[in-house]
């Protein structure tokens, strides 16, 4: 057993947070392209998210006409989503030495790509962009637990920044269970390593934390999860996601006001 005490008698976690406290959440818009092309058809702009020690860059390219290579994928009625996740080799505790030389993503990353694609195909109003392709490139610079949730959040912010039409904002949060009683939100690396945990993503739910409106749109577990704990898990996760939504909305607003000022 690990010698760590994940939830001590005074209700503090290993890094000093309480069980329902989220990690530090900061996002910003770093762009390599010029701001003047700020429109739906802009080339690209990059969203940077730092959620605790998770550092993620998302670059959205499109919607645009597909290039020659992926013309075959084209759909006459709606857009096509193409997601590409690149987990850098230096992002983990140990520098990873890849065994395959053709640089194809590992199984875990492929699964994430698949999950995120399925999720955002339902979120983006694809009918608005027929015959076009949206490229989402995710780069994970550093990871410290709950990386899937962070990627989803970052993609969500990037979609807003890129003014792509979506039904609602998606927010995601990782949840862990200690001693089958205490639920922890937004895990760090140590907690994720030793606890039963999962990720929950929510769409809807008003900014005023109206939990009833929230719809769960993704539920992903890292290992076998006991069914009897699911209720508490969902409640904790949904609450966390709703709070995150508040934070995200304010940050996106602030970000874009800055941008507007700069443009003017």
């Amino acid at each position, binding site marked *: *057993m690990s*010698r760590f005490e994940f*939830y*001590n*008698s*005074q*209700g*503090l976690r290993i*890094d*000093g*947070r*309480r*069980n*329902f*406290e*989220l*990690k*530090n*959440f*900061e996002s910003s818009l770093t762009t390599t392209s010029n701001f003047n092309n700020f429109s739906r058809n802009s080339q690209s702009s990059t969203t940077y998210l730092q959620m*605790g*020690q998770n550092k993620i860059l998302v670059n959205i390219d499109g919607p645009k006409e597909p290039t020659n290579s992926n013309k075959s994928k084209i759909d006459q009625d709606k857009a096509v989503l193409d997601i590409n996740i690149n987990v850098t080799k*230096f992002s*983990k*505790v*140990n*520098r990873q030495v890849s065994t395959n030389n053709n640089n194809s993503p590992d199984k875990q990353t492929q699964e994430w790509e698949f999950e995120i694609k399925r999720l955002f195909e339902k979120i983006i109003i694809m009918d608005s962009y027929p015959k076009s392709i949206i490229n989402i490139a995710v780069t994970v610079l*550093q990871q*410290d637990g709950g990386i899937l949730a962070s990627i989803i959040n970052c993609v969500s912010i990037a979609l807003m920044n890129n003014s792509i039409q979506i039904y609602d904002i998606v927010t995601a949060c990782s949840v862990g269970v200690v*001693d*089958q*009683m205490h639920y922890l*939100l937004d895990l*760090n*690396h*140590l907690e994720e390593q030793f606890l*039963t945990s999962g990720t929950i993503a929510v769409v809807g739910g008003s900014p005023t934390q109206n939990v009833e409106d929230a719809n769960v749109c993704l539920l992903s577990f890292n290992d*076998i999860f*006991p*069914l*009897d*704990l699911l209720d508490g898990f969902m409640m904790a996760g949904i*609450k*966390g996601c709703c*709070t*995150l939504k*508040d*934070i995200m909305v*304010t940050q996106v607003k602030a970000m874009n006001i800055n941008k507007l000022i700069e443009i003017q």
Partner: protein
Amino acid sequence: MSTDNKIILPSIGKKRVINENFTSNKKSKNLQVTTKYFIKNSNNLNNVQPVKILREHYLRDDIPCSVKKCQLCQYDSGSADSKPILEDSDILSNNKNHIAVLDTNVIVNSIDMIENEKIFNNIIIPQTALDELKNLSFPIYKRLKSIIGSTELSDENKYKNISVFYNEFMNKTYCDRLPTESINDRNDRSIRKLAKYLDYHLNNNIKKNQSLNIQIVLITNDKLNLEKCKEIGVTAMNIYEYIDNLTNSEELKDMIPQYDLTADHKINDKDADVTKSSSEDFYDEYYPNSRISAGLKNGSIYQGNIQISEHNFLQGYVNVNSFPKPILIKGMKNLNRSFNSDVVAIELLPENEWQQESSYQVDSEHYDVNLNPDVNEDSEDANLAESNSVIISDKQRRLLAQEAIKQSKNNKNCVPTGKVVGIIRRSWRQYVGQIVEASVDEENNSGTNYQSCFVLLYDLKLPKVVIKTRRAVELMNKRILIGVDSWPKDKKYPLGHFIKDLGVVESRDAETEALLLEHDVEYRPFSKKVLQCLPEEGDNWKCPVDLKDPQEISKDPSLVKRVDLRDKLICSIDPPGCVDIDDALHCKLLPNGNYEVGVHIADVTHFVKPNTPLDQEGASRGTSVYLVDKRIDMLPMLLGTNLCSLKPYVDRYAFSVIWELDSNANIVNVDFMKSCIKSREAFAYEEAQLRIDDKNKNDELTMGMRNLLKLSKLLKQKRLDAGALNLASPEVKVYMDSETADANDVEIKKTFETNSLVEEFMLLANISVARKIQEAFPQTAMLRRHASPPKTNFDILNDMLTKVKDPNFKIILDSSKTLAESLDRIEDPNDSFFNTLVRILSTRCMMAAEYFPSGAHPYADYRHYGLAVDIYTHFTSPIRRYCDVVAHRQLAGAIGYEMLDLSHRDKNKMEIICKNINRRHRNAQFAGRGSIEYYVGQVMKKENESEKPKIETGYVIKMFHNGFQVLVPKFGVEGLIRLENMATDMKDVDFNEDQYTLTFKTEDKAMRTVRVFDKVDVEVKSVLDPITNKRTAQLLLK
């Protein structure tokens, strides 16, 4: 948190405030969280790659101080025990109320005092110290954790209040490590900062107007720290000063560990210490850690558990995987301060120093007892060859190792011999012992002077310990509890300190408590928290009359899955006077000629739900302990003897296994269910036997029992055919006088056919359940295995048998079947007991059976060697064994009765459970045997009074140079007959080790030869050993 070999980059984090945060708690909505992070670059030995460690550290300002009087702190109602607990009841001699803050070094050295109820009743432990402690000594950390929170003291309405202050998470008390500072200095500084903060917070808080006048005292043994405290104006003391300042200082002084006396200047005068060493040292210095780990890697140093020989405390063995036989460690210098069952690092000695196993019998009790404990006399060890310091390279050592393997195969006389070069993990705990009278200077007892005296430990495999006390005379003739502090290399014996007085030697209470403490049995009454988990109705709890009653179902939704078996004719068969009945049986003839046989086990898990305090207590106790006059229960009385006990004539919940057996006792079908039963009768073994034999009784219940007996015989035969062993151990029963509770007779346990009746069906139930849970939970099923014994274990026994008795006698170990058959063959026509004797001796060569989670071994290794079955578990005694509780839950999960708790589905957690119950099980056995030994001694003492010498038959089972070991079957005792008690002249003694004979001249000038396995007449006398104060059976050859 980081050790020195980690390179730490300068912190690149910055503190910043974020505005958004989320808590479910409205009260702390406006709380601000600051974050800090750092990157470490660490190297450890196994992994050469640099590792990037990334940890966030949130600082907050809502850490409460836990002082009851404080008005400022707020508590999070959500978490388990966050309420203010600290009172200001501890009073210093200057009449000031105070709360003590402890430093790490104080906790490590004085953990016994912290556990004591006379001191440290209101203390704050800084988180920094707790973290340091965790890395320093995990066992002490665990002991401390168990008393944190408030614990009830024996004095009513008083509590021991220990609280942890999480100073690392508080922005006012957190300190950054300075660039030039060592990690220890930083920790000391943060503890000082905490003391300063608490002082300010409680006493001088002008802004918020709080002045409680509670003094904060920082207790530390570090001189530098004390000085620095003075500089910043924090009251600080070392432990001596502190105790001097207490009102009850007198009685506490004895308990101060000795280690401190030297520790103080060791830190400061390190250089001086190094220069003056070497010449006075009694033992060789241990190798540095780096050398040991390098040596372990390249194969020149080995690591293992040291086992001190039972016959000679100057000789130990270390089992190393790469050697067929354990490596011998001989002599005090080579044992180099190791205690029994320490994990040690050893090195092989050069071949010319290899030695034979000593055939002398040496007890620590009789080995230089008359030494003055203050003086370090260098008496030359008879067994110890003068060590000629040959320097051997690692390569040579590896060659040596190959040589050693060869040697141990060919030559049985010289054994590879090694030397302890380092202790990897100490096994020190609290020990029971008594003061050696010879070492106490009675005249010089003015009551104020400390004097050193020897304490002889209960476990004779351990060396004597030197303690300093002022109450030596008072403590003479008493059993005392001591702790071991240190064993410096210039001291011949380890240093320790006094903890507790258990009472006068030979008084029943003191002996029982000593026995329980020595075997680490938790014997305190159940705590309030545990008792709260019991059903509210208490003794009046009843099974619902109708299992389909909707009202009852609403209370317990799984009731619908319970089967009503109250119409079955069930009875229980147990030892006489049994109150915790956990099994019952029934048998019915089916219309198709087969039998329906049911085994019903008390449904303990209905009351013991996982993860409750009750469950945790049961898990940590692991088993009930049966002493002759006392039973230490695993579960509270209410459950064990009433609600769970399958008492006759009342409805009880049970877990039933129901088979359909054909007339040859083959299993046709098996079914498991939770049920409700009503036992018709509770029999003792003898009663049941009489009822079965009584031809006049032909009622259905008796018929059922007869059928059970018939089937059980078939089952037993099958088991024996498969190769089950029939081993023996000398089991005796002590009869107690019902009024005085004194033991008054001893007898070997009688068995009836009905004993085996119950046993066979319990085995069958265990096997069936094992199969079922293994199927359902292939990785985590709780099973029990018994490994086949290694051949080398039987070498000596076989050698003795062939040489002494008959060349054809040989124990063949190919399988349990051949072993059983060869045991059957070894028969002395003139002595019927000889076969039993060999069985007793072979039992000692066996491996111990153990619990394990099924994922820990491949299927082939699940085998239970002794029972000759491929899979086995314990299911049938959940009242007294925790393994059975787990098996019950897993079986309930497997049949879909309820969800299996997560902790029993987690391989790691199961491994922890198994490790604990294996240890508890072993300890319980030792304690039980110890208790029988004590009472047998008492019985013999009584019989001594009748003046007539008692002559009994004994068997010689082991030979030594200076005596031999004799087993007396009547009492089940063993004793050593020393040569000096038999022979007149030591010169005429001839010991032939090859032939296992000892020839000597008896008092009447006749030569006498004693051989192993000889049947001898011995006079049994109970003697109180003057030095150990232990009553032992003394045997005299007649």
